[in-house]
């Protein structure tokens, strides 16, 4: 299960000090030779090399030649892209929505984003280098999501998704709507003559993210998206495997989790079924009140229930980037993409593994002290 743990312990102290020197000297290109590289799209390379210049990946693979005299890091462990979380309210507790308003169609979560919030540093320590920040579940239309780098360096997409909620927190006793039928009527009204973000969504330029919990909510969300030809993903969708056929036909993807030790096996098995059915999925981060490993814990629980490891890795990296809509920049290790990567002392699907060094755009942002 964990072939790298003993090797990882051999992670050379000289390597880490070399990194530090490199930073000081302002060197803008380097090579990393790693015993194993997960490319983020489900593929892996044994004993490969990653070549980074000016924060951008130049090449990666087994056959990448390392010219002599160039600075090279030797890593006897696993190298992966940075982890991408596809839904979270990191750094935004209490600021990511307004339950008193059912419709925040033109609301922008980007306006509440505070890059230096400690939640992001915390997520980064656990290997999450990019996250989608999603408006709260408590409005029927929550507004626009935003995609950010957790090192605070960049907002990747200021209006990434239009977030709507089919869940009960969006139904409040002190404002309309209070019920499912009213919520659906509100959404239908937007699509009767779409303007603004809804026109963008209808034209296929702005994907939806739809909060939906129990199966009947999931079925309602799928029917809504299908009827109007809307693309995007569901958030939550426990037991979505019971509506697998309509889900597949809709072309929607699913953002699952976060899962905890108390999450029912039935819910975790849903993720296994999604993977087997080839439905794209990715993971949500823990919300900011829970200071724990934001994504990997959810993934590990699913792997324990039988989630294919390759599918799990895709959901952490490249698959997540597609759902987040930032696959042109992050998620896989390939030429032209940001050099966001993690050096692990073991397989990231194994919870006993840790990130030893994390890079964002080729810059060492966090490093474990031993």
């Amino acid at each position, binding site marked *: 299960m964990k072939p790298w743990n003993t090797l990882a312990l051999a992670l050379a102290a000289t390597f880490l000090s070399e990194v530090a020197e490199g930073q000081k000297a302002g060197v803008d290109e380097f090579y990393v030779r790693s015993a194993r590289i997960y490319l983020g799209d489900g593929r892996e390379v044994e004993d490969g090399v990653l070549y980074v210049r000016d924060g951008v990946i130049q090449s990666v693979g087994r056959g990448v030649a390392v010219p002599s005299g160039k600075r090279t890091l030797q890593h006897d462990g696993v190298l992966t892209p940075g982890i991408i979380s596809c839904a979270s309210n990191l750094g935004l507790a209490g600021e990511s929505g307004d339950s008193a308003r059912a419709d925040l169609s033109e609301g922008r979560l980007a306006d509440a984003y505070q890059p230096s919030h400690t939640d992001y540093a915390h997520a980064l320590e656990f290997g999450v280098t990019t996250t989608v920040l999603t408006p709260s579940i408590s409005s029927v239309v929550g507004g626009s999501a935003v995609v950010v780098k957790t090192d605070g360096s960049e907002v990747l997409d200021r209006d990434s998704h239009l977030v709507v909620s089919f869940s009960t927190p969006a139904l409040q006793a*002190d404002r309309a709507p209070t019920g*499912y039928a009213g919520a659906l*009527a509100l959404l239908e009204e937007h699509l009767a003559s779409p303007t603004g973000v809804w026109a963008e969504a209808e034209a296929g330029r702005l994907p939806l993210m739809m909060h939906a919990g129990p*199966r009947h909510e999931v079925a309602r969300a799928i029917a809504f998206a299908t009827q109007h030809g809307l693309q995007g993903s569901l958030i939550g969708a426990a037991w979505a*495997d019971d509506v697998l056929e309509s889900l597949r036909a809709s072309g929607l993807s699913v953002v699952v989790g976060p899962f905890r030790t108390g999450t029912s096996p039935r819910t975790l098995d849903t993720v296994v079924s999604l993977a087997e059915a080839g439905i794209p999925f990715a993971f949500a981060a823990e919300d900011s009140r829970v200071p724990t490993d934001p994504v990997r814990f959810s993934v590990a629980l699913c792997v324990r229930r*039988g989630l294919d490891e390759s599918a799990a890795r895709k959901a952490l990296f490249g698959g997540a980037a597609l759902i987040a809509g930032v696959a042109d920049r992050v998620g896989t290790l390939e030429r032209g993409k940001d050099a966001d990567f993690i050096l692990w002392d073991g397989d990231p699907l194994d919870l006993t593994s840790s990130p030893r060094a994390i890079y964002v755009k080729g810059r060492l942002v966090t490093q474990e002290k031993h």
Partner: protein
Amino acid sequence: MISVGWTLLALTTSAALPQEEETTWVIRAQTVYTAAGDPIEDGAFIEVEDGIIEGVGSGSRGGDGALECFAVTPGLIDLSVRIASSRWSVEESDEVQLAARMADAVDLFSYRWGREARSGVTSALVSPPDNNVLGGLGIALKTAGEPTLEARLLRDDAVLRGSFGDYPARHSTPNRLAVGPPRDFRTRRPATRMATEWVMRDAFYKGIAAKRSGTAYDGAEVLESVLSGERPMIVQAWATQDIRTAAFFKAEFSIPRMIIDGAAEAWREPELLRSSGASVVLPPMVFGQRARDNAFYTLSCAKTLHDAGIPFALSGHGAERSDERLAYQPAHAMRGGLPFEAALEAVTMAPARMIGVEDRVGSIEAGKDADLVLWSGRPFEPSSRVVGVLVSGRLVLDPRPTE
């Protein structure tokens, strides 16, 4: 060790995959109560093909594969099933919701569908919860089948649901704020019977006035369909004063098809109900006789309605207690003097006619949906059990002994 675990999981997953279900059967019974004329006694059979009743007759058909039981009745029809009646299944931002659709708020995945189906209820009218004065459009569904509206639909937007009595008022909460606007919608609902009844009439007055003046009115089409008789209106009314209100309401607005649901005290007003032309859905018999809204319910209520010639159905009214389910209600009604044939009618053809689905369900006749209940003895007897249920030909309760 890990690989062993994965193998077991793989088996679990594949077992959960949906399988093509058998919908073609032959059923053999001592007696088939068709609810369409006299029962077929001394040996009868029913042939079911692709979920539809192909033939019914006396004698014996089918080989070893036939389903066998003592008696068969049509699947039971309950016009007052309260599944998914969470507060989110009703839109409370206004106590008048003519156009809110239960189809948009129903939970087809609820475990309670299975309980209804296995207890013999094969068709159900599900209406918005009665927190509102006018809750919107109820939907008639089969109780089993794929959990999609398409697969389960019997009649979309089948009825307009309303409620008299103290139920909408009970959901009114006093505004505890000394100053300022109401805290939420519930502080603004009608707080009494009189106000509830007025809100309902007011909605109709406004709708009719809007039609006369040619102005827009939210839900105008629904109102029109109720006033023309195209769509029945079903109102909750347990106590005498509310049953009277419902009858007067029907007369005032000349509503052709009015169903009074939960009418525990209907026995007090047989003449008024008969002359009004309303139909009645009776709630489950409760021990102690005080039903909801403090209504006084009698065992003889069904017999009284029967004797007066008032169309009525029995219901479980969403009872969670198994002894209040629909399959037990005919026994109570018969104990109160209702003839067997009338009791059978009250759980099959009578409710089917009230919502206009009698062409598909309600009796055992060729061409109708194969919704059947298989009994261990004479139906409705306290010592008889429901041993098998078919919904659209799908076996949801298997009468065959397990090996």
